[in-house]
Protein backbone atom coordinates (compact mmCIF):
# COMPACT_ATOMS: atom_id res chain seq x y z
CA UNK A 1 0.00 0.00 0.00
CA UNK A 2 2.80 2.36 0.77
CA UNK A 3 3.89 2.18 -2.95
CA UNK A 4 0.51 3.43 -4.10
CA UNK A 5 0.17 7.07 -4.89
CA UNK A 6 -1.71 8.38 -1.87
CA UNK A 7 -3.43 11.17 -3.71
CA UNK A 8 -5.28 8.94 -6.21
CA UNK A 9 -6.51 6.75 -3.38
CA UNK A 10 -7.39 9.47 -0.96
CA UNK A 11 -9.31 11.38 -3.62
CA UNK A 12 -11.15 8.25 -4.76
CA UNK A 13 -12.01 7.20 -1.23
CA UNK A 14 -13.16 10.67 -0.27
CA UNK A 15 -15.31 10.94 -3.38
CA UNK A 16 -16.80 7.50 -2.86
CA UNK A 17 -17.57 8.21 0.77
CA UNK A 18 -19.33 11.37 -0.33
CA UNK A 19 -21.26 9.43 -2.92
CA UNK A 20 -22.44 7.01 -0.27
CA UNK A 21 -24.77 9.80 0.82
CA UNK A 22 -26.95 8.73 -2.09
CA UNK A 23 -28.02 5.70 -0.04
CA UNK A 24 -30.67 5.85 2.66
CA UNK A 25 -29.38 6.76 6.08
CA UNK A 26 -30.15 3.34 7.59
CA UNK A 27 -28.43 1.50 4.77
CA UNK A 28 -25.47 3.83 5.01
CA UNK A 29 -25.21 3.35 8.73
CA UNK A 30 -25.35 -0.43 8.45
CA UNK A 31 -23.26 -1.06 5.35
CA UNK A 32 -21.48 2.21 4.59
CA UNK A 33 -18.17 1.33 6.28
CA UNK A 34 -18.15 -2.12 4.68
CA UNK A 35 -18.91 -0.66 1.26
CA UNK A 36 -16.16 1.93 1.68
CA UNK A 37 -13.75 -0.79 2.71
CA UNK A 38 -14.72 -2.94 -0.24
CA UNK A 39 -14.20 0.04 -2.51
CA UNK A 40 -10.76 0.57 -1.05
CA UNK A 41 -9.97 -3.08 -1.69
CA UNK A 42 -11.18 -2.75 -5.25
CA UNK A 43 -9.10 0.39 -5.69
CA UNK A 44 -6.04 -1.50 -4.54
CA UNK A 45 -6.76 -4.34 -6.95
CA UNK A 46 -7.42 -1.93 -9.81
CA UNK A 47 -4.21 -0.08 -9.12
CA UNK A 48 -2.31 -3.31 -8.95
CA UNK A 49 -3.88 -4.34 -12.22
CA UNK A 50 -3.25 -1.24 -14.29
CA UNK A 51 -2.72 1.72 -11.96
CA UNK A 52 -4.55 4.89 -13.02
CA UNK A 53 -6.23 3.17 -15.95
CA UNK A 54 -7.43 0.50 -13.57
CA UNK A 55 -8.83 3.13 -11.23
CA UNK A 56 -10.61 4.77 -14.13
CA UNK A 57 -12.15 1.47 -15.21
CA UNK A 58 -13.18 0.84 -11.62
CA UNK A 59 -14.93 4.16 -11.45
CA UNK A 60 -16.69 3.47 -14.73
CA UNK A 61 -18.07 0.28 -13.20
CA UNK A 62 -18.74 1.71 -9.76
CA UNK A 63 -20.71 4.79 -10.76
CA UNK A 64 -23.57 2.99 -12.56
CA UNK A 65 -23.61 0.42 -9.75
CA UNK A 66 -23.80 3.17 -7.17
CA UNK A 67 -26.54 5.04 -9.03
CA UNK A 68 -28.66 1.93 -9.62
CA UNK A 69 -28.31 0.45 -6.16
CA UNK A 70 -28.84 3.75 -4.34
CA UNK A 71 -32.10 4.21 -6.20
CA UNK A 72 -32.99 0.60 -5.45
CA UNK A 73 -32.32 1.09 -1.76
CA UNK A 74 -34.40 4.24 -1.69
CA UNK A 75 -37.27 2.37 -3.28
CA UNK A 76 -36.74 -0.53 -0.90
CA UNK A 77 -37.03 1.94 1.96
CA UNK A 78 -40.43 2.96 0.67
CA UNK A 79 -41.48 -0.66 0.37
CA UNK A 80 -40.26 -1.27 3.88
CA UNK A 81 -42.58 1.41 5.19
CA UNK A 82 -45.42 -0.28 3.43
CA UNK A 83 -44.28 -3.61 4.80
CA UNK A 84 -44.34 -2.09 8.27
CA UNK A 85 -47.95 -1.14 7.71
CA UNK A 86 -48.52 -4.70 6.60
CA UNK A 87 -47.10 -6.01 9.81
CA UNK A 88 -49.18 -3.62 11.84
CA UNK A 89 -52.21 -4.76 9.97
CA UNK A 90 -51.23 -8.34 10.66
CA UNK A 91 -50.85 -7.61 14.34
CA UNK A 92 -54.28 -5.99 14.35
CA UNK A 93 -55.78 -9.00 12.70
CA UNK A 94 -56.82 -7.12 9.60
CA UNK A 95 -55.39 -9.57 7.13
CA UNK A 96 -58.88 -10.48 6.10
CA UNK A 97 -61.13 -9.41 3.32
CA UNK A 98 -62.04 -5.72 3.35
CA UNK A 99 -65.73 -6.54 3.26
CA UNK A 100 -65.37 -8.76 6.30
CA UNK A 101 -63.38 -6.03 8.02
CA UNK A 102 -66.11 -3.54 7.26
CA UNK A 103 -68.95 -5.67 8.50
CA UNK A 104 -67.13 -6.84 11.60
CA UNK A 105 -66.10 -3.35 12.58
CA UNK A 106 -69.47 -1.96 11.62
CA UNK A 107 -71.18 -4.43 13.91
CA UNK A 108 -68.68 -3.82 16.69
CA UNK A 109 -68.83 -0.02 16.61
CA UNK A 110 -72.56 0.06 16.11
CA UNK A 111 -73.14 -2.23 19.05
CA UNK A 112 -70.77 -0.20 21.21
CA UNK A 113 -72.38 3.13 20.40
CA UNK A 114 -75.91 1.83 20.46
CA UNK A 115 -75.29 -0.04 23.69
CA UNK A 116 -73.67 3.02 25.24
CA UNK A 117 -76.65 5.16 24.31
CA UNK A 118 -79.01 2.65 25.90
CA UNK A 119 -76.92 2.42 29.06
CA UNK A 120 -76.56 6.19 29.36
CA UNK A 121 -80.27 6.67 28.74
CA UNK A 122 -81.07 4.16 31.43
CA UNK A 123 -78.71 5.57 34.05
CA UNK A 124 -79.64 9.20 33.47
CA UNK A 125 -81.80 10.50 36.32
CA UNK A 126 -85.45 10.70 35.40
CA UNK A 127 -87.21 14.01 35.60
CA UNK A 128 -90.87 14.92 35.60
CA UNK A 129 -92.56 17.89 34.03
CA UNK A 130 -95.45 19.91 35.38
CA UNK A 131 -97.10 22.70 33.49
CA UNK A 132 -99.18 25.62 34.66
CA UNK A 133 -100.90 27.88 32.17
CA UNK A 134 -101.64 31.54 32.61
CA UNK A 135 -103.75 33.87 30.55
CA UNK A 136 -102.01 37.19 30.25
CA UNK A 137 -104.11 40.14 29.13
CA UNK A 138 -101.85 42.41 27.18
CA UNK A 139 -104.20 45.42 27.65
CA UNK A 140 -106.09 45.02 30.92
CA UNK A 141 -108.72 47.62 31.86
CA UNK A 142 -107.78 49.70 34.81
CA UNK A 143 -107.61 53.20 36.15
CA UNK A 144 -104.71 54.10 33.94
CA UNK A 145 -106.30 52.83 30.79
CA UNK A 146 -109.70 54.36 31.45
CA UNK A 147 -108.37 57.61 30.06
CA UNK A 148 -106.58 56.01 27.12
CA UNK A 149 -107.71 56.86 23.66
CA UNK A 150 -109.27 54.10 21.56
CA UNK A 151 -106.25 54.15 19.27
CA UNK A 152 -103.74 53.62 22.06
CA UNK A 153 -105.89 50.95 23.69
CA UNK A 154 -106.02 48.89 20.53
CA UNK A 155 -102.29 49.17 19.81
CA UNK A 156 -100.69 45.77 19.23
CA UNK A 157 -97.42 45.17 21.06
CA UNK A 158 -95.35 42.71 19.03
CA UNK A 159 -92.93 42.30 21.92
CA UNK A 160 -95.55 41.52 24.52
CA UNK A 161 -94.94 37.76 24.66
CA UNK A 162 -91.18 38.17 24.72
CA UNK A 163 -91.47 40.80 27.41
CA UNK A 164 -93.76 38.57 29.42
CA UNK A 165 -91.33 35.65 29.16
CA UNK A 166 -88.43 37.81 30.21
CA UNK A 167 -90.41 38.96 33.23
CA UNK A 168 -91.23 35.34 34.02
CA UNK A 169 -87.52 34.54 34.05
CA UNK A 170 -86.58 37.60 36.05
CA UNK A 171 -85.66 38.15 39.64
CA UNK A 172 -88.97 39.84 40.41
CA UNK A 173 -90.87 36.63 39.62
CA UNK A 174 -88.40 33.85 40.45
CA UNK A 175 -86.95 35.51 43.55
CA UNK A 176 -90.19 35.20 45.51
CA UNK A 177 -90.54 31.59 44.30
CA UNK A 178 -87.12 30.74 45.71
CA UNK A 179 -88.02 32.39 48.99
CA UNK A 180 -91.49 30.87 49.16
CA UNK A 181 -90.37 27.31 48.48
CA UNK A 182 -87.06 27.76 50.34
CA UNK A 183 -85.22 26.41 47.35
CA UNK A 184 -81.86 27.57 48.69
CA UNK A 185 -82.18 25.11 51.55
CA UNK A 186 -84.05 22.36 49.71
CA UNK A 187 -81.65 22.27 46.78
CA UNK A 188 -78.68 22.83 49.07
CA UNK A 189 -79.53 19.58 50.83
CA UNK A 190 -80.00 17.80 47.53
CA UNK A 191 -77.15 19.10 45.46
CA UNK A 192 -74.71 20.93 47.72
CA UNK A 193 -73.99 18.47 50.47
CA UNK A 194 -76.43 20.12 52.83
CA UNK A 195 -75.00 23.63 52.59
CA UNK A 196 -77.59 26.17 51.48
CA UNK A 197 -77.22 27.47 47.97
CA UNK A 198 -76.85 31.13 47.21
CA UNK A 199 -79.90 32.74 45.67
CA UNK A 200 -78.00 33.31 42.44
CA UNK A 201 -77.19 29.59 42.24
CA UNK A 202 -80.77 28.62 42.89
CA UNK A 203 -81.86 31.16 40.30
CA UNK A 204 -79.62 29.58 37.66
CA UNK A 205 -80.85 26.11 38.50
CA UNK A 206 -84.43 27.27 38.41
CA UNK A 207 -83.97 28.93 35.04
CA UNK A 208 -82.38 25.76 33.71
CA UNK A 209 -85.44 23.78 34.76
CA UNK A 210 -87.93 26.28 33.41
CA UNK A 211 -89.46 26.06 29.98
CA UNK A 212 -91.82 28.76 28.74
CA UNK A 213 -93.92 28.52 25.63
CA UNK A 214 -96.73 30.54 24.13
CA UNK A 215 -99.94 28.82 23.09
CA UNK A 216 -100.39 29.65 19.45
CA UNK A 217 -103.02 32.30 18.58
CA UNK A 218 -103.89 32.91 22.22
CA UNK A 219 -102.65 35.13 25.02
CA UNK A 220 -101.92 32.02 27.08
CA UNK A 221 -98.45 31.02 28.18
CA UNK A 222 -97.44 27.64 29.52
CA UNK A 223 -94.98 27.43 32.37
CA UNK A 224 -93.29 24.03 32.49
CA UNK A 225 -90.88 23.02 35.23
CA UNK A 226 -88.71 19.90 35.22
CA UNK A 227 -87.58 18.13 38.34
CA UNK A 228 -86.68 14.64 39.43
CA UNK A 229 -89.31 15.12 42.12
CA UNK A 230 -92.73 15.17 40.53
CA UNK A 231 -94.32 17.10 43.41
CA UNK A 232 -91.57 19.66 43.42
CA UNK A 233 -92.04 20.27 39.70
CA UNK A 234 -95.72 21.01 40.24
CA UNK A 235 -95.07 23.18 43.27
CA UNK A 236 -92.53 25.28 41.44
CA UNK A 237 -94.68 25.68 38.33
CA UNK A 238 -97.63 26.83 40.41
CA UNK A 239 -95.43 29.10 42.48
CA UNK A 240 -94.06 30.75 39.34
CA UNK A 241 -97.54 31.26 37.96
CA UNK A 242 -98.67 32.73 41.27
CA UNK A 243 -95.59 34.89 41.58
CA UNK A 244 -96.13 36.22 38.08
CA UNK A 245 -99.76 37.01 38.81
CA UNK A 246 -98.75 38.72 42.07
CA UNK A 247 -96.16 40.74 40.22
CA UNK A 248 -98.72 41.85 37.67
CA UNK A 249 -101.22 42.76 40.41
CA UNK A 250 -98.58 44.52 42.46
CA UNK A 251 -97.35 46.56 39.56
CA UNK A 252 -100.94 47.43 38.58
CA UNK A 253 -101.77 48.44 42.15
CA UNK A 254 -98.77 50.67 42.27
CA UNK A 255 -99.72 52.27 38.96
CA UNK A 256 -103.35 52.69 40.08
CA UNK A 257 -102.27 54.22 43.35
CA UNK A 258 -100.04 56.64 41.55
CA UNK A 259 -102.90 57.65 39.26
CA UNK A 260 -105.35 57.96 42.15
CA UNK A 261 -102.89 60.03 44.09
CA UNK A 262 -102.48 62.37 41.14
CA UNK A 263 -106.27 62.77 40.79
CA UNK A 264 -106.63 63.24 44.50
CA UNK A 265 -103.99 65.96 44.50
CA UNK A 266 -105.82 67.69 41.67
CA UNK A 267 -109.11 67.33 43.54
CA UNK A 268 -107.67 69.01 46.63
CA UNK A 269 -106.18 71.84 44.58
CA UNK A 270 -109.59 72.44 43.02
CA UNK A 271 -111.21 72.44 46.44
CA UNK A 272 -108.82 75.14 47.60
CA UNK A 273 -109.58 77.19 44.50
CA UNK A 274 -113.33 76.77 45.09
CA UNK A 275 -113.00 78.01 48.67
CA UNK A 276 -111.01 80.98 47.49
CA UNK A 277 -113.55 81.79 44.77
CA UNK A 278 -116.44 81.41 47.24
CA UNK A 279 -114.78 83.86 49.65
CA UNK A 280 -114.28 86.40 46.87
CA UNK A 281 -117.88 85.96 45.77
CA UNK A 282 -119.16 86.64 49.31
CA UNK A 283 -117.18 89.86 49.54
CA UNK A 284 -118.52 91.03 46.15
CA UNK A 285 -122.07 90.15 47.17
CA UNK A 286 -121.73 92.27 50.32
CA UNK A 287 -120.09 95.05 48.34
CA UNK A 288 -122.93 95.27 45.84
CA UNK A 289 -125.63 94.41 48.40
CA UNK A 290 -126.92 91.46 46.42
CA UNK A 291 -129.46 89.13 47.99
CA UNK A 292 -128.33 85.58 48.68
CA UNK A 293 -130.87 83.93 46.47
CA UNK A 294 -130.62 86.44 43.60
CA UNK A 295 -130.46 84.81 40.21
CA UNK A 296 -130.17 87.80 37.86
CA UNK A 297 -128.19 91.04 37.91
CA UNK A 298 -130.11 94.16 38.95
CA UNK A 299 -127.65 96.69 37.52
CA UNK A 300 -124.58 96.83 35.34
CA UNK A 301 -122.25 97.47 38.25
CA UNK A 302 -122.99 93.98 39.62
CA UNK A 303 -121.22 92.30 36.67
CA UNK A 304 -118.01 91.45 38.59
CA UNK A 305 -120.07 89.46 41.09
CA UNK A 306 -121.92 87.54 38.39
CA UNK A 307 -118.70 86.80 36.46
CA UNK A 308 -117.17 85.46 39.61
CA UNK A 309 -120.25 83.35 40.27
CA UNK A 310 -120.00 81.77 36.80
CA UNK A 311 -116.35 80.87 37.51
CA UNK A 312 -117.39 79.24 40.76
CA UNK A 313 -120.12 77.25 39.04
CA UNK A 314 -117.60 76.00 36.46
CA UNK A 315 -115.14 75.03 39.18
CA UNK A 316 -117.84 73.20 41.11
CA UNK A 317 -118.91 71.32 38.02
CA UNK A 318 -115.35 70.17 37.23
CA UNK A 319 -114.88 69.32 40.90
CA UNK A 320 -117.88 67.02 40.80
CA UNK A 321 -116.61 65.36 37.66
CA UNK A 322 -113.19 64.76 39.22
CA UNK A 323 -114.80 63.31 42.34
CA UNK A 324 -116.86 60.97 40.19
CA UNK A 325 -113.76 59.90 38.30
CA UNK A 326 -111.92 59.19 41.52
CA UNK A 327 -114.80 57.06 42.72
CA UNK A 328 -114.82 55.18 39.42
CA UNK A 329 -111.09 54.65 39.56
CA UNK A 330 -111.35 53.27 43.07
CA UNK A 331 -114.03 50.91 41.93
CA UNK A 332 -111.97 49.82 38.91
CA UNK A 333 -108.98 49.26 41.13
CA UNK A 334 -110.94 46.93 43.35
CA UNK A 335 -112.78 45.06 40.66
CA UNK A 336 -110.50 44.75 37.68
CA UNK A 337 -106.98 44.46 39.04
CA UNK A 338 -106.88 40.71 38.70
CA UNK A 339 -108.28 40.60 35.21
CA UNK A 340 -104.78 41.13 33.63
CA UNK A 341 -103.40 37.72 34.64
CA UNK A 342 -105.35 34.60 35.27
CA UNK A 343 -104.05 31.16 36.13
CA UNK A 344 -106.24 29.01 33.95
CA UNK A 345 -104.46 25.70 34.65
CA UNK A 346 -102.61 24.79 37.78
CA UNK A 347 -99.76 22.33 37.57
CA UNK A 348 -100.17 18.77 38.79
CA UNK A 349 -97.49 16.20 39.50
CA UNK A 350 -96.66 14.19 36.39
CA UNK A 351 -97.27 10.46 36.29
CA UNK A 352 -94.43 9.49 34.01
CA UNK A 353 -90.97 10.94 33.60
CA UNK A 354 -90.42 13.01 30.50
CA UNK A 355 -86.63 13.08 30.66
CA UNK A 356 -84.62 11.35 29.43
CA UNK A 357 -86.60 10.94 26.26
CA UNK A 358 -85.84 7.27 25.86
CA UNK A 359 -87.20 6.68 22.35
CA UNK A 360 -85.44 9.79 21.07
CA UNK A 361 -82.15 8.99 22.80
CA UNK A 362 -82.14 5.41 21.59
CA UNK A 363 -83.01 6.48 18.06
CA UNK A 364 -80.22 9.06 18.10
CA UNK A 365 -77.87 6.44 19.51
CA UNK A 366 -78.75 4.08 16.68
CA UNK A 367 -78.26 6.77 14.04
CA UNK A 368 -74.97 7.89 15.56
CA UNK A 369 -73.87 4.27 15.78
CA UNK A 370 -74.63 3.70 12.11
CA UNK A 371 -72.69 6.80 11.15
CA UNK A 372 -69.64 6.07 13.28
CA UNK A 373 -69.68 2.40 12.39
CA UNK A 374 -69.73 3.27 8.70
CA UNK A 375 -66.84 5.69 9.08
CA UNK A 376 -64.70 3.37 11.20
CA UNK A 377 -65.56 0.25 9.19
CA UNK A 378 -64.92 2.03 5.91
CA UNK A 379 -61.62 3.41 7.11
CA UNK A 380 -60.25 0.11 8.27
CA UNK A 381 -61.64 -1.70 5.27
CA UNK A 382 -59.64 0.69 3.14
CA UNK A 383 -56.56 -0.05 5.19
CA UNK A 384 -57.21 -3.76 4.87
CA UNK A 385 -57.70 -3.36 1.16
CA UNK A 386 -54.51 -1.39 0.86
CA UNK A 387 -52.46 -3.69 3.03
CA UNK A 388 -53.84 -6.68 1.17
CA UNK A 389 -51.98 -5.59 -1.95
CA UNK A 390 -48.73 -7.01 -0.73
CA UNK A 391 -45.72 -7.54 -2.87
CA UNK A 392 -45.16 -11.26 -3.19
CA UNK A 393 -41.95 -12.37 -1.56
CA UNK A 394 -39.08 -12.48 -3.98
CA UNK A 395 -35.38 -12.42 -3.41
CA UNK A 396 -34.84 -9.57 -5.83
CA UNK A 397 -31.51 -8.26 -4.70
CA UNK A 398 -30.35 -6.08 -7.51
Amino acid at each position, binding site marked *: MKNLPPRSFSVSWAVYERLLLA*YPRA*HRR*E*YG*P*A*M*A*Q*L*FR*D*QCRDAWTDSQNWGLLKLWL*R*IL*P*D*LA*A*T*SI*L*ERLAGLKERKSMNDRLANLSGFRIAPAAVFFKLFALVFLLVFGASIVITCILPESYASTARVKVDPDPKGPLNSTATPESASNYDPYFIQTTFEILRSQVVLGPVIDQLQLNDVWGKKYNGGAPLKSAQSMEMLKARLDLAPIRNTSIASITVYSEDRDEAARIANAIAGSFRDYRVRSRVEASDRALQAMWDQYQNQEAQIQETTAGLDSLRQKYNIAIGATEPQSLREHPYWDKKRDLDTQLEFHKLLAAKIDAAKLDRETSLNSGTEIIDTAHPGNTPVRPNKPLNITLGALTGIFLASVVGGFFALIASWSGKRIP*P*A*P*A*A*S
Partner: protein
Amino acid sequence: MSTHLQEPEELLPLTPAVFHVLLALAGGERHGYAIMQEVAESTEGRIKMGPGTLYGTIKRLLEARLIEESDERPDAELDDERRRYYRLTAVGEQVVRAEARRYADLVALARGKKLIGKTARAVMPGGYA
Protein backbone atom coordinates in the same frame (compact mmCIF):
# COMPACT_ATOMS: atom_id res chain seq x y z
CA MET B 1 -37.99 -10.27 0.88
CA SER B 2 -40.33 -12.19 3.11
CA THR B 3 -39.13 -13.70 6.31
CA HIS B 4 -42.00 -16.16 6.39
CA LEU B 5 -40.32 -18.79 4.26
CA GLN B 6 -42.18 -22.03 3.90
CA GLU B 7 -40.56 -23.81 0.97
CA PRO B 8 -37.21 -22.96 -0.68
CA GLU B 9 -38.93 -23.15 -4.05
CA GLU B 10 -41.03 -20.19 -3.10
CA LEU B 11 -37.98 -17.98 -3.47
CA LEU B 12 -37.03 -19.27 -6.89
CA PRO B 13 -35.89 -18.18 -9.31
CA LEU B 14 -33.11 -16.26 -7.63
CA THR B 15 -31.57 -13.26 -9.27
CA PRO B 16 -28.04 -13.90 -10.61
CA ALA B 17 -26.49 -11.69 -7.94
CA VAL B 18 -28.22 -13.56 -5.16
CA PHE B 19 -27.31 -16.92 -6.63
CA HIS B 20 -23.67 -15.95 -7.04
CA VAL B 21 -23.42 -14.69 -3.48
CA LEU B 22 -25.06 -17.84 -2.14
CA LEU B 23 -22.76 -19.96 -4.27
CA ALA B 24 -19.76 -18.06 -2.94
CA LEU B 25 -20.90 -18.65 0.62
CA ALA B 26 -21.59 -22.30 -0.12
CA GLY B 27 -17.83 -22.78 0.12
CA GLY B 28 -17.71 -21.39 3.66
CA GLU B 29 -18.10 -18.13 5.46
CA ARG B 30 -16.64 -15.09 3.78
CA HIS B 31 -16.51 -11.32 4.12
CA GLY B 32 -17.73 -8.98 1.42
CA TYR B 33 -14.46 -8.57 -0.40
CA ALA B 34 -13.90 -12.34 -0.42
CA ILE B 35 -17.38 -12.89 -1.82
CA MET B 36 -16.70 -10.40 -4.57
CA GLN B 37 -13.41 -12.11 -5.37
CA GLU B 38 -15.05 -15.52 -5.33
CA VAL B 39 -17.73 -14.42 -7.76
CA ALA B 40 -15.18 -12.81 -10.04
CA GLU B 41 -12.98 -15.88 -9.93
CA SER B 42 -15.79 -18.37 -10.50
CA THR B 43 -17.02 -16.41 -13.50
CA GLU B 44 -13.50 -15.86 -14.79
CA GLY B 45 -13.81 -12.13 -14.27
CA ARG B 46 -17.01 -11.71 -16.23
CA ILE B 47 -18.96 -10.72 -13.15
CA LYS B 48 -17.50 -8.11 -10.86
CA MET B 49 -19.84 -6.98 -8.16
CA GLY B 50 -19.64 -3.43 -6.97
CA PRO B 51 -20.07 -2.48 -3.30
CA GLY B 52 -23.63 -1.31 -3.88
CA THR B 53 -24.76 -4.52 -5.52
CA LEU B 54 -22.89 -6.77 -3.12
CA TYR B 55 -24.09 -5.19 0.08
CA GLY B 56 -27.59 -4.62 -1.27
CA THR B 57 -27.73 -8.34 -1.97
CA ILE B 58 -26.26 -9.21 1.41
CA LYS B 59 -28.82 -6.99 3.10
CA ARG B 60 -31.70 -8.76 1.43
CA LEU B 61 -30.27 -12.18 2.08
CA LEU B 62 -29.87 -11.31 5.74
CA GLU B 63 -33.45 -10.11 5.88
CA ALA B 64 -34.59 -13.33 4.23
CA ARG B 65 -32.52 -15.33 6.73
CA LEU B 66 -30.73 -17.05 3.87
CA ILE B 67 -27.41 -15.94 5.27
CA GLU B 68 -26.30 -14.76 8.65
CA GLU B 69 -23.45 -12.76 10.03
CA SER B 70 -20.74 -14.81 11.65
CA ASP B 71 -19.44 -13.92 15.04
CA GLU B 72 -15.96 -15.02 14.12
CA ARG B 73 -13.45 -12.31 13.41
CA PRO B 74 -10.08 -12.74 11.70
CA ASP B 75 -6.83 -12.42 13.48
CA ALA B 76 -5.97 -8.74 13.54
CA GLU B 77 -2.52 -9.52 12.16
CA LEU B 78 -3.89 -11.51 9.24
CA ASP B 79 -6.80 -9.34 8.16
CA ASP B 80 -8.82 -6.28 9.06
CA GLU B 81 -10.77 -7.25 12.16
CA ARG B 82 -13.52 -4.82 11.17
CA ARG B 83 -14.56 -7.04 8.31
CA ARG B 84 -17.89 -8.73 8.69
CA TYR B 85 -18.16 -12.37 7.78
CA TYR B 86 -21.24 -14.06 6.42
CA ARG B 87 -22.31 -17.64 6.08
CA LEU B 88 -25.21 -19.61 4.72
CA THR B 89 -28.07 -20.57 6.96
CA ALA B 90 -29.74 -23.94 6.66
CA VAL B 91 -32.54 -22.34 4.74
CA GLY B 92 -30.08 -20.52 2.53
CA GLU B 93 -28.39 -23.78 1.76
CA GLN B 94 -31.70 -25.38 0.80
CA VAL B 95 -32.50 -22.43 -1.40
CA VAL B 96 -29.19 -22.43 -3.21
CA ARG B 97 -29.44 -26.19 -3.70
CA ALA B 98 -32.93 -25.82 -5.09
CA GLU B 99 -31.80 -23.11 -7.44
CA ALA B 100 -28.87 -25.17 -8.56
CA ARG B 101 -31.19 -28.08 -9.27
CA ARG B 102 -33.42 -25.79 -11.22
CA TYR B 103 -30.45 -24.69 -13.34
CA ALA B 104 -29.43 -28.29 -13.75
CA ASP B 105 -32.89 -29.18 -14.95
CA LEU B 106 -32.78 -26.31 -17.40
CA VAL B 107 -29.38 -27.40 -18.67
CA ALA B 108 -30.66 -30.95 -19.05
CA LEU B 109 -33.61 -29.63 -20.96
CA ALA B 110 -31.37 -27.59 -23.23
CA ARG B 111 -29.19 -30.63 -23.82
CA GLY B 112 -32.25 -32.67 -24.59
CA LYS B 113 -33.05 -30.08 -27.21
CA LYS B 114 -29.44 -30.32 -28.38
CA LEU B 115 -28.97 -26.63 -27.77
CA ILE B 116 -25.75 -27.25 -25.91
CA GLY B 117 -23.22 -30.06 -25.84
CA LYS B 118 -22.22 -32.17 -22.91
CA THR B 119 -19.13 -30.09 -22.32
CA ALA B 120 -20.72 -26.71 -22.89
CA ARG B 121 -20.70 -24.44 -19.91
CA ALA B 122 -23.90 -22.92 -18.76
CA VAL B 123 -23.42 -19.23 -18.55
CA MET B 124 -25.79 -17.43 -16.33
CA PRO B 125 -27.04 -14.07 -17.43
CA GLY B 126 -26.14 -10.92 -15.62
CA GLY B 127 -23.21 -8.63 -15.41
CA TYR B 128 -22.16 -6.60 -12.45
CA ALA B 129 -19.98 -3.66 -11.66
